[in-house]
């Protein structure tokens, strides 16, 4: 027992105690939930995932779905819809954000002011308001399918979305054009107003933040680097591409990771404008099965997995570009 005087032994003992207490507490809480659910005869467990969902989903990504499929498949469709919107928004917002960041540092007065105005306006309006705005713009201002705008042959803009021709065969080139039949367009590709509003809202919103991150990253590169590069006779382009940006990237990547995570999580606002993302499908599932705890657990687990995957990838990328001496 004398060994308890040793700090090492003591700390192990304390940690074991704490872990045991934690496990007991969690076990007690879970047992209590299960007991109370049973007492109130509220169904529990994940058995419902294999049952027929019975509801339709407005749009799907990669995976086909109809009402006779299971809840599991419905949730998978929701996940892929989230993935499609979030990943496209991340790509576009990164490109747009980089341009905005550079524009804010531009010596062109007008360009700089436009970029600054963009950032301030977009950054300071809540995202959900922007989503409602884009959704209203698309559904209120665009005409009904029968009077759809037809800016290019085979391209239609209406309040049912953006219809465009799709490529069926390459040689000879064969296109599948959208055609108005009955209530709506069929054939070709169609981007729904819900997807368009969510994608626009997310991409523009995230781009404002990324623009600021890019600007901060470039400004953080020591001014001597610019001067040294210019005095060696490099052009402005070369200075940016070969000297400044690689150094700025090391500062940009960690906060950029947070923006990617935010963008993914913000995509759950989709439910407000009717885009069938994971949260929307999970909500319907919860409502029909009444199993709120399981449903929310699934939502949490999926977002956690996506977020960990993104940060895992970004951390790996960060380690690749970081200064050799700074590796930890």
């Amino acid at each position, binding site marked *: 027992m004398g060994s308890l005087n040793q700090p090492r032994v003591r700390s192990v003992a304390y940690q074991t105690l704490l872990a045991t207490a934690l496990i007991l507490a969690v076990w007690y809480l879970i047992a209590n*939930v299960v007991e109370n659910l049973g007492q109130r005869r509220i169904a529990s467990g994940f058995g419902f995932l294999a049952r027929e969902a019975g509801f339709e989903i407005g749009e799907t990504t990669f995976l086909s779905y109809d009402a006779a499929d299971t809840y599991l498949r419905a949730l998978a469709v929701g996940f892929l819809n989230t993935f499609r919107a979030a990943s496209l928004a991340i790509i576009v917002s990164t490109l747009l954000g980089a341009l905005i960041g550079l524009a804010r540092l531009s010596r062109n007065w007008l360009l700089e002011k436009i970029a600054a105005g963009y950032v301030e306006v977009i950054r300071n309006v809540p995202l959900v308001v922007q989503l409602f705005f884009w959704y209203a713009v698309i*559904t*209120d201002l665009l005409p009904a399918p029968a009077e759809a705008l037809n800016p290019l042959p085979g391209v239609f803009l209406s*309040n049912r979305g953006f219809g465009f021709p799709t490529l069926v065969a390459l040689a000879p080139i064969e296109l599948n054009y959208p055609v108005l*039949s009955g*209530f709506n367009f069929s054939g070709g590709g169609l981007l729904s107003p819900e997807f368009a509003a969510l994608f626009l809202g997310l991409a523009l919103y995230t781009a404002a933040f990324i623009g600021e991150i890019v600007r901060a990253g470039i400004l953080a590169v020591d001014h001597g680097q610019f001067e040294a590069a210019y005095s060696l006779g490099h052009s402005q382009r070369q200075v940016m591409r070969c000297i400044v940006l690689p150094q700025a990237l090391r500062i940009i990547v960690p906060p950029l990771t947070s923006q990617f995570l935010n963008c993914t999580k913000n995509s759950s606002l989709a*439910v407000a404008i009717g885009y069938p993302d994971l949260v929307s499908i999970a909500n319907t599932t919860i409502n*029909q099965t*009444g199993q709120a705890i399981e449903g929310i657990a699934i939502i949490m687990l999926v977002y956690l997995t996506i977020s960990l995957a993104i940060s895992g990838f970004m951390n790996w990328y960060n380690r690749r570009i970081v200064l050799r001496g700074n590796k930890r």
Partner: protein
Amino acid sequence: MRVKPTLQTATLLFTLLSSAHAHGGATADAALKKGFLRCGVNTGITGFAQPDSNGEWRGVDVDFCRAVGAALFGDARKVRYTPLTAQQRFTALQSGEVDLLARNTTWTMSRDTSLGLNFVGINFYDGQGFMVARRLKVKSAKELNGAAICVQSGTTTELNLADYFRAKNMKFKPVVIEKLEEVLNAYFAGRCDVYTTDVSGLISARVSRAVNPADHVILPEVISKEPFGPAVRHGDDHWFDVVKWTLFATIEAEDLGLTSKNIEQQAQSHDPAVQRFVGVKGDFGKMLGLDNRWAYNIIKQVGNYGESFDRNLTPLGLDRGLNKLWNRGGLMYAPPMR
């Protein structure tokens, strides 16, 4: 936007985590101690539950909450309303956020058995229908193949819709939105060809939201049975009885010809059924753990079922239909109070 359901799930989790045992008879006691009843209602549907220009809640569901308030406190004003979306409603009831749910909620077997709640009866018989813009010249739901259909999430409507189109071998594109307000915006902006919900909801939306109500037609097909009923939590049979008999009292009063206007003089009546109802004879209030004048208070302050219907739904152009009394060709029927 996502905060509320998540918060509610957290509250539910918390109550389930913390309360070791559910106890009986507690709901009425707790409400009496607080001094008011917490009633879960719709976020805003004309005729069922909606605040008027003075911020006073109005509607048949609101009247039902007031009736329970009158039975319990002798005062129909002792009610606080919690507006709930379709998705939030059951969790709010399960977690104890509201004492009673009177929110045009369809009584289904799965809800009654697996959600930990009990429906006390039916206060409105409805069915799901379709509304389309008149200019589309659609005459029947059978012509809706390929239509885009706006629907609120978290309702039986979503399932009925899918069932109907599957049975008819037709396709449709659902646009599923959480808030009723946004669903209606989408429909009236032309995002969808069709709006579907219970016929009473279609009529209410057409009257209250359409620029020109005549531009929208409700199709003849009614594709489901939607009996709306108030619901209470499992585990408090006494409370279940109080709420159930409040509903029956409003129907029985109409059957007996008792209204808010004549009940005072009818209290002197020699008809034994009326005497039992107003509490002159018998101990029917005591049996519920209430004042013997409980039913008198309900009718005096809120009125009978027919009065509530005429006040809230008739002005919208809604027909009594199935909601007439049993002896007038409808389905409204109360077991005898004796």
